[in-house]
């Protein structure tokens, strides 16, 4: 094998490479004649055109078969996620720290809430209908305009003390801040199995310690008439119902871990792999 193992010097290698790129004797460019390159390129071009065509065809037929109103499967959406406003993330999860005496630290949080609630002004909700029944709002037909379904109105005034109307600072300067809890929407999800799911906030790990909370609307429930959700196409103006929580006895200058769970049949909050499923956990620290 001596012939195959010859050590080549760098210049020989370069020369070999140059010869590979363009060999003037055999008129080979990178091992092929130019016409051969043209042929092989055309072949690959044709090949990829056909393959892309087949791929496009598959995607096209896929889109023809999917249901525009609701997904075929909801394998990952067994239980809804829960989110919190204001949402400030620290190193590990949500972290709401502010100082009463420093306006800047809480004004940001207040702005977040105000911005969030702009979607719930009567003006923003004018397309939705007033619902009164405490039952699931089941619609088998498209009764809304433009072949849609109706959505129930949720306006910020339903959050009473936390609506930002009476108190535009949401209680932050007094050390009794409001937080808004929202449940993710899932198509045709019936939470609570007939009873309205409600929010329940406690200290993490120490459930016996009393956490004084005011819930708005009363009892911190999501009224059943907001469910089920029929999807973006059927309910273009749908807005998630909200629950506001107002913490009344927050110890100052201590970092507190609070969890707000949604209690109701069909909603799980014990999935160790998903901290936002059925509950939201956050750290709260109010300094003065």
């Amino acid at each position, binding site marked *: *094998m*001596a*012939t*195959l*193992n010859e050590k080549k010097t760098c210049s020989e290698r370069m020369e070999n490479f140059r010869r590979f790129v363009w060999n003037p004797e055999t008129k080979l460019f990178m*091992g092929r004649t130019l016409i*051969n390159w043209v*042929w*092989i390129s055309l*072949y*690959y071009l044709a*090949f*990829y055109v056909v*393959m892309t065509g*087949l*791929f496009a065809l*598959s*995607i096209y037929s*896929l*889109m023809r078969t*999917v249901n525009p*109103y*609701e*997904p*075929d*499967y*909801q*394998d*990952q*959406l067994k239980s*809804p*996620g*829960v*989110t919190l406003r204001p*949402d400030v*993330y620290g*190193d*590990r999860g949500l972290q709401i720290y502010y100082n009463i005496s420093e306006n800047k630290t809480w004004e940001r949080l207040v702005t977040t809430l105000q911005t969030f609630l702009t979607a719930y002004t009567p003006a923003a909700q004018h397309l939705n209908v007033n619902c009164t029944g405490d039952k699931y709002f089941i619609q088998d037909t498209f009764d809304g305009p433009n072949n849609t379904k109706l959505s129930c109105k949720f306006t910020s005034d339903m959050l009473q003390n936390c609506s930002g109307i009476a108190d535009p600072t949401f209680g932050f300067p007094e050390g009794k801040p409001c937080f808004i809890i*929202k449940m*993710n*929407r*899932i*198509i045709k999800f019936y939470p609570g199995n007939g009873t309205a799911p409600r929010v329940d906030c406690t200290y993490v790990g120490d459930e016996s310690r009393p956490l004084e909370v005011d819930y708005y609307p009363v009892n911190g429930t999501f009224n059943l008439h907001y469910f089920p*959700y029929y*999807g*973006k*196409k059927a*309910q273009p103006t*749908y807005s*998630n119902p909200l629950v506001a929580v107002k913490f009344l006895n927050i110890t100052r200058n201590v970092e507190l871990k609070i969890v707000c769970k949604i209690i109701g049949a069909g909603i799980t909050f014990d*999935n160790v*792999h*998903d*901290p*936002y*499923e059925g509950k939201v956990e956050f750290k709260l620290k109010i300094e003065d």
Partner: protein
Amino acid sequence: MKKEMDVDDHKLELPDLEAKYSTSITKGLVGAVAAERLLRDGPNELRPPRGTPECVKFGRQLAGGLQCLMWVAAAICLIAYGVQEGQGDRGSADNLYLAIALIAVVVVTGCFGYYQEFKSTNIIASFKNLVPQQATVIREGDKLQINANELVVGDLVEIKGGDRVPADIRIISAQGCKVDNSSLTGESEPQTRSPECTHDSPLETRNIAFFSTMCLEGTATGLVINTGDRTIIGRIASLASGVENEKTPIAIEIEHFVDIIAGLAIFFGATFFVVAMVIGYPFLRAMVFFMAIVVAYVPEGLLATVTVCLSLTAKRLARKNCVVKNLEAVETLGSTSVICSDKTGTLTQNRMTVAHLWFDNQIHTADTTEDQSGQSFDQSSETWTLLSRVVTLCNRAQFKSGQENVPVAKREVIGDASETALLKFAEVTVGTVSEARGRFPKVAELPFNSTNKFQLSVHTAGDRQLLVLKGAPERVLERCSTVMIKGQELPLDAQWREAFEGAYADLGGRGERVLGFCARWLPAGTVAAGTDPEALPEVAVGLCFAGLVAMIDPPRATVPRAVLKCRTAGIRVIMVTGDHPITAKAIAAAVGIISEGSETPEDVAARLRVPLEQVDPRQARARVVTGAELAGMEPGVLEGILRAHPEMVFARTSPQQKLVIVESCQRLGAIVAVTGDGVNDSPALKRADIGVAMGIAGSDAAKNAADMILLDDNFASIVTGVEQGRLIFDNLKKSIAYTLTKNIPELTPYLIYITASVPLPLGCITILFIELCTDIFPSVSLAYERAESDIMHLKPRNPRRDRLVNEPLAAYSYFQIGAIQSFAGFTDYFVAMAQEGWWPLLCLGLRPRWEDTHEQELQDSYGQQWTFEQRRYQQYTCYTVFFISIEMCQIADVLIRKTRRLSLLQQGLFRNHILVIAIVFQVSIGCFLCYCPGMPNIFNFMPIRFQWWFVPMPFGLLILIYDEIRKLGVRRHPGSWWDRELYY
């Protein structure tokens, strides 16, 4: 190192010798001088050369091209893990797992390789047991027993039967001393040792005995002329251990292609690193992309696959009596273009056998087959009766007792090689020898000696006495006055003498050892019991000539066919032997190494009646070159001769010359296999691309130096090896093509992920599962594929042109089949995403929000809101779906790889059962990974919907059909553009 031994001590007169070594041939050395010399020359033993430390060897296994890349990838993973952990990210443990998995892969493959290397043990160790322990030395006139390693040059030593010669010694006096030089020269016949210088070459002269050879009988006194590593055996040992083990062709192929893969992996990785940086990804993410691309592109399981394929073939060969020590050697045999074969024991049976007889003025051919299955000659003549009687009686050899049930050919005999041959011949043709000897009791005998060159005995035969004599034909004829023809005693006139000369020359020219036989009836009592043997020759005159018997070590029955097979397979067989040129040529002609009608330059000269110098080498296909001629050749001449004459025989060669011959062939670009059995063959065995040692006759040194051992010593087994080697090369090509294909569908998800910012379709851990788990068995099962054509009728592959991985193979695998697989994967990916709520157009550019751990309410195409973890499980679903797509396409891939040219239907879709099992296994593993509980959080596999298994199937079918079209084109239009571009 390759220099021949330049010793002239055998030519020196004793006084000169004494002066040279300042010693005395009567009293030996003075103790103090001996001690001084011991200090100067070192002990008289073989020293192993300094080897590479074991840890360095192991380290090298961990630092190959791919391994380095994997280390880098693992390091990036660990860094990413560390940084992400510091930032408090969830899900970053994946990077830790990945790093551990990568390191495990590297270390496990490294251990595997190290073990392979470790097995090829130290050569010197096998020489150790040849070396004597004790020596009888005369110092200052006293006879001492000392450890052999304390001997020094100039010491006076004594040896006797049963001893090993303790150093290279010049014989000063000897009484009937015979040594067995087989370990050095490969010739098993005992050699006489005497004080006379009989030959210029130190290897052939009688007055030198060599270190480690066995003294069989007699005694001798000699002067130590070389010790330790400077002895002949020491040189062979250091030659053998000093010869670098050549890289096997398959190792070169794999290295070549691993380099390309590693280069491409770095190229792809770096390109997309830059692309990612330009797009605006943070540095760490770009590094993770680089790592992921390396992991996706490097075929992690390939080296394991190749090793397993080779060991499967090695196992198959082991069943056919070829034990392969070095796995890669399996393929080397397949690419072998020259076999340098030793003669004795490999091509021949390694036993003297009666081959021809001349009586009644006619040459008769005896049966030389191992199992006496051949034709016998006409035994009706009365001359034969006489001749057979002489053969039976004039023979001192006898069978060892208790072997009545053993076939004659296998019985053990006390006596030398010729007598043994005659004894067995007589036993087979005439019948029980001992009985015949009993009927004719021996009265007196004169054993063979080198001055008389004959042996005679007188036997009582009823009321007469029978004198029988055998010996060198010319000496026998001198004592004859009549010749027996068809039972008639005719006077031995000039005409018969001429006939005799003719027959003698004829048989001698066949390389056979010829003995003459004659007899005479004597009146009873002519020779009395107890007559002085020296008086017997006087009686032995006027004898009746019975015939000639010619003996040879005959070729094995299977060898001529094997040589012919080698020829049809384009392999050149060269004989390299230590034996005489005439014998070598005769055997070469008998087995077909020199084919019928081929002539050597000498033959041509004789035919044309011109001097040898005027012969045109082109007229002579064959050539016999002796060691002496070789020694006189300029460098480069040998290559010329090898090129000019296709049929070569080398005779009387030394170990160094064998090495030179092998190297010359290698310089001509040949892949050389060497077969041999003796210690003398070990350097050439080691130097060869593949050394083949004989299992039965082979010395330990030869077996250690070899890559392969023929358990049955049968040259024909090599042909099996060649066939298997060629098959495995073809099948490895298929395995590698199969393995490489999936790298593209593993790589494209990352490329699309980076450029189109879709949620990641395929994870690194999933890729490792494809590489190291599901696809290993199918790629190995291709090693069981049958040959597509008659591979033994093709020329050996040209190691420069016929590469294992060539451009069409890579292009076809990567850019065509790999592309189809990628499309299949993406189709299935978009299906799974769309059916869960994420339509294709939404997916594009979704990545930043999709991967935002703070985003807990990302809306899908239906307005549903997803937490990060819900999206993560959806991403795992995509991994699984893509994984299943690749698996489905790989099933089609393994089917198309069964053949490179033939249609699948011609090859038989299910004939390779292992492959079918492998596919079932692959699917089962896929199912297990998908549906075993707990998988999502351990290995990121999700229980996917059943129908997603079927999405890629049309693409699999497309692969099958497309490849059938390709093969059809290749078959229909050989040599066309299609064939050149698409046949790998």
